[in-house]
């Protein structure tokens, strides 16, 4: 689905420049659900924005369906991948439904109005995120969690095979964190969609993801199936804090180790 070749990302310039990711060679196949894990400032968001084509890589390249990002026309690319940004600012008083409908933009360049099938898709997406009752509300009056769910609904309405999500669980309450994650996992399993997401909840990541990409913070990285890379010693080095794992039935629960200082 999406792959990177010798991808290098840097931040800053001159002597203050820091390498976030050094020659990342990474393959994401259809139907896989990846979690990107790393400490603050490790380059998770930068990586995701590069994958989305929002910022050009410093070196190497990203390819979707084997075709480099730069060779894709913007509209065609918008039918391949959707991107959930970490934060949103709403300058104008659009309704929730308009927000979701506008995500159908890539499907009709030359039409002035959406069709009724777009409305159906938008309402289904809102229903999937349990915000269909808010359809007529002004987006600026929503709570943080509601706004986040509307944004995810817009992403679902974009109906792309590849979903890139920057902290989808942000601002969501516990129940919705679980339901959103389950939904993403289900999309991968049943519809063959591909998900790459950034998140900080290791337990949640472990339970829904098939694979994980660990950014170690010094430019190195580890990628592989969850069972291989989400080991406490690797995670501890990745997050710069010792991690303990507890088995609870079939579940793996990750907790930070208490340090006595």
């Amino acid at each position, binding site marked *: 689905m999406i792959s990177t070749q010798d991808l290098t990302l840097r931040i800053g310039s001159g002597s203050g420049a820091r390498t976030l990711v050094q020659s990342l060679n990474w393959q994401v196949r259809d139907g896989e659900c990846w979690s990107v894990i790393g400490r603050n400032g490790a380059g998770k968001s930068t990586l995701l924005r590069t994958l989305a084509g929002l*910022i050009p890589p410093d070196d190497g390249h990203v390819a979707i369906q084997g075709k480099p990002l730069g060779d894709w026309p*913007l*509209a065609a*690319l918008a039918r391949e991948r959707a991107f959930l940004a970490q934060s*949103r600012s*709403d300058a104008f008083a*659009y309704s929730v*439904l308009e927000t979701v409908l506008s995500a159908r933009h890539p499907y009709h360049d030359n039409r002035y109005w959406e069709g009724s099938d777009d409305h159906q898709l938008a309402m289904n997406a809102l229903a999937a995120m349990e915000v269909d009752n808010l359809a007529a509300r002004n987006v600026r009056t929503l709570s943080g969690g509601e706004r986040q769910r509307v944004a995810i609904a817009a992403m679902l309405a974009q109906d792309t095979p590849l979903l890139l999500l920057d902290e989808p669980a942000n601002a969501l309450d516990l129940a919705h964190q679980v339901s959103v994650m389950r939904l993403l996992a289900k999309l991968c399993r049943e519809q063959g969609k591909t998900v790459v997401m950034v998140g900080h909840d290791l337990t949640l990541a472990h339970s829904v993801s098939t694979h994980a990409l660990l950014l170690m913070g010094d430019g190195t990285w580890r990628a592989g199936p969850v069972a291989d890379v989400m080991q406490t010693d690797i995670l501890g080095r990745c997050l710069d804090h010792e991690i303990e794992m507890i088995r609870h039935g079939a579940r793996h629960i990750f907790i930070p180790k208490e340090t006595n200082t």
Partner: protein
Amino acid sequence: MHPTSTSLRSRAVAVTGALALFVVATLLFAGMTGSIHIPLPDIAGALHELFAPIDGATPSLAATLLELRGTRALTAFVTGAALSLSGVMMQALLRNPLADPYVLGISAGSAVGALFAMMLMCATWMVDAAAFAGAVTIAMLLYFLARRDMRSGAAAEGGTALLLLTGVILSAACTALITLMLSIAPESRLRNMVFWLIGDLSGAPFRLMPWIVLAVCVIFALRSARAINVMALHAESAVTLGINVGLLRKGLFFASALLTASAVTNGGSVGFVGLIVPHACRFAFGADHRVLIPAATLLGGGYLVLADTLARTAIAPQQLPVGVVTALIGTPVFLYQLHRLRK
């Protein structure tokens, strides 16, 4: 029940139709009102006389008056429509509901040109040319200083803070130049200069150019209405929805600069139309640009026709500059809206 696509479409048609009727009504009202009242039944006859003149016959008083008033009302319409559309574009471009056509200093630039020509006692057409040249100069300067915000391609991200700040600074510089010219201008020119600054439609002849500019910009705006919606909504991720943000920003910038230049050249810097009309429309019809663009264009034109009629009749035979009227009506309306929205 959520609005379906057909009801949205019919609502847009209804809104546009109603506002078009409103514009026709304002134009008729402007034709009827003045020192000599022309009753509505006579308007039809006078119009017929104007468009199908009988050779040799002296035109009736009604026809002569209607020609004068009609020309002025049409100029008011095209000026108001251009300012209002330019306001919608500027607000979308800067993603800031408080932006207006003047915020980037394009009108201040044209004022510098116009006042300079007036100070040198140039002919009217030279004043117009200088006003237009001033606006174009500032627009070009802005583009070159802030083109980072309007880069093409997928890499265009980030806001338009650089453009906004550059515009505000250039505007301040132009204001200083305006003040300088006002303080050294000969006494005899001062009144005209001040009237130009406030915005005044008296003596503005009928010109074709503003209509062409308006038509081209309305077509551009309607064609990009969907994309403008996406950009206004998803600032960060408009690119991921297939919008060429850089290209769209460039288009919006040049279209609104051209509209402002054309409107200001026509009627001076008439204030508040470009700010309050888009807001009133957004408030009444929603933020969807597919409805907002035609609605704001029509309402802006109609509003200025009314304001100008008021300006020439309120304290007749003396004439008020129309900018005073739009600002006096505009300020309380805008404050009221602002406080209701912020509540």
